[in-house]
């Protein structure tokens, strides 16, 4: 339960799109899909990042929109990645068919769940925002705001055409508005679904109250919640 700051060596830095990179690092801790680590970029800050690969090697996928993120995407093979964790709960693992619903980089935390038994609905602003292209192609239904890839529209436009009874579990991660729309859509349907929430996190150990929602600490009691 106590996680000292430590480091691992970076094995590879893969550019996913213009400002999103996946960094693979050599670490032997145990982690499950949905969990996150606090990554420290010395001199620039510390940010929570979901593990986009939970096996060996592990990986984080960073969309660079703040200073630590921008530094991080320039890390090279052999650099030290400082972090603490893993923290938080995880997605339930099921044997059956899985529906993964994501918007933008929300797919990162669910990337470890993708296999031959999963269908993905991925919502993007435009075609060039795609990440994990190799894994998604052939398994994903895309929606884009501008219609440059797949259906022009939002996740619900794709979700409407899916037979929900085919799936044993639905996983959702993305901006809160998108998750709310999925939550509402699924409300009167008899399905199992899990949502991974995002909030600003500072301590990650359930004491600073910065990620609390209705008295629940996302960092320790979440980030994954069931419908």
């Amino acid at each position: 339960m106590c996680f000292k700051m430590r480091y691992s060596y970076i094995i590879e830095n893969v550019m996913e799109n213009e400002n999103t990179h996946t960094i693979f690092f050599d670490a032997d801790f145990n982690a499950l899909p949905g969990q996150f680590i606090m990554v420290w970029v010395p001199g620039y800050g510390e940010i929570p990042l979901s593990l986009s690969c939970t096996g060996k090697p592990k990986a984080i996928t960073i969309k660079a929109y703040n200073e630590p993120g921008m530094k991080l995407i320039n890390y090279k093979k052999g650099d030290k990645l400082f972090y603490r964790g893993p923290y938080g709960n995880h997605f339930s693992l099921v044997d059956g068919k899985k529906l993964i619903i994501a918007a933008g980089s929300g797919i990162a935390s669910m990337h470890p769940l993708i296999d031959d038994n999963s269908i993905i609905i991925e919502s993007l602003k435009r075609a060039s925002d795609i990440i994990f292209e190799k894994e998604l192609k052939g398994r994903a239904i895309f929606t884009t705001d501008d219609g440059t890839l797949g259906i022009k529209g939002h996740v619900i436009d794709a979700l409407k055409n899916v037979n929900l009874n085919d799936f044993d579990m639905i996983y959702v991660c993305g901006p809160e508005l998108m998750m709310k729309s999925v939550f509402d859509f699924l409300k009167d349907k008899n399905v199992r679904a899990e949502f991974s929430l995002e909030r600003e996190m500072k301590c990650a150990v359930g004491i600073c109250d910065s990620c609390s929602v209705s008295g629940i600490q996302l960092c320790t009691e979440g980030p994954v919640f069931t419908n």
Partner: protein
Amino acid sequence: MDVSCNVSSIKLKNPLILASGILDENGYTMKKIIESGASAVVTKSIGIEERKGFETPVIYEEYPYFINAIGLSNPGIDAFASEMNILKGYNVIGSIFGTGPEDFSYLAMKMQEYGAIAVELNLSCPHVKGFGLEIGSDPDLVESIVSEVKSKVRIPVFAKLSPNTHDIIEEAKAARKADALVLINTLKAMKIDINARMPVLSNIYGGLSGKSIKPVGVRYVYEVSKEMNIPVIGVGGIESYEDVIEYIMAGASAVEIGTAIYRHGKGIFKEINNGILNFMKENKIESLSEIRGCALR
């Protein structure tokens, strides 16, 4: 058996209070803590204006201690009204910080208006320039802040003092007009990561809390209780019922628990309460007042 206690005019069902700075910025979170067995909660320290706090990293953890430099992040006293509203009817002690007597008395009046059962003056935050420690180490300023606040509010006034001082008795005497003293705040500390070759906290310095500081807290409570006749609330490193008993034997009327929540969760209040009851039963203690200060020599 009776685990209730009095701190000045406040009667508490048990001596276990949530310490300031831990899970206490959000009304619903504080409500949960009280429902988990704490007899009262102390809010995060609230100032006049909103403060974002320091850039991350703001904490460093390594059992049995914790170093934090959150940087007095808070929504400001006006915005905090909505959180206090959620807590109507609950025992909430409003922690406040400011630069001088005017700030503190204004904030105290607001807390009173919001329904706080007491105010706790944060005279001792060790890591924010211009607040806390810099105030706490000036006895004249401490005295004028306490006097000013006391003259403005009806609710009890607690003064939280710093261990980062050369003479705790001088500091405690400067705050003697308070209804109780809260001892101790965190100890100024830092962590250097030898692999990154730099301090971990963005602010460099932070406040040390957790099990490591308990012997220091007990010593301060003991020393002040021995010298002065004033209620003391003990804080620092409490993780078990044994720790609470130790503080009470050193003279504490009640205690505050904070950092331990990260290892033990919110259930710690009930756990410790049960531990105290068992200890009292085994040792045929009817009321905590029988052992309060019993170790003082």
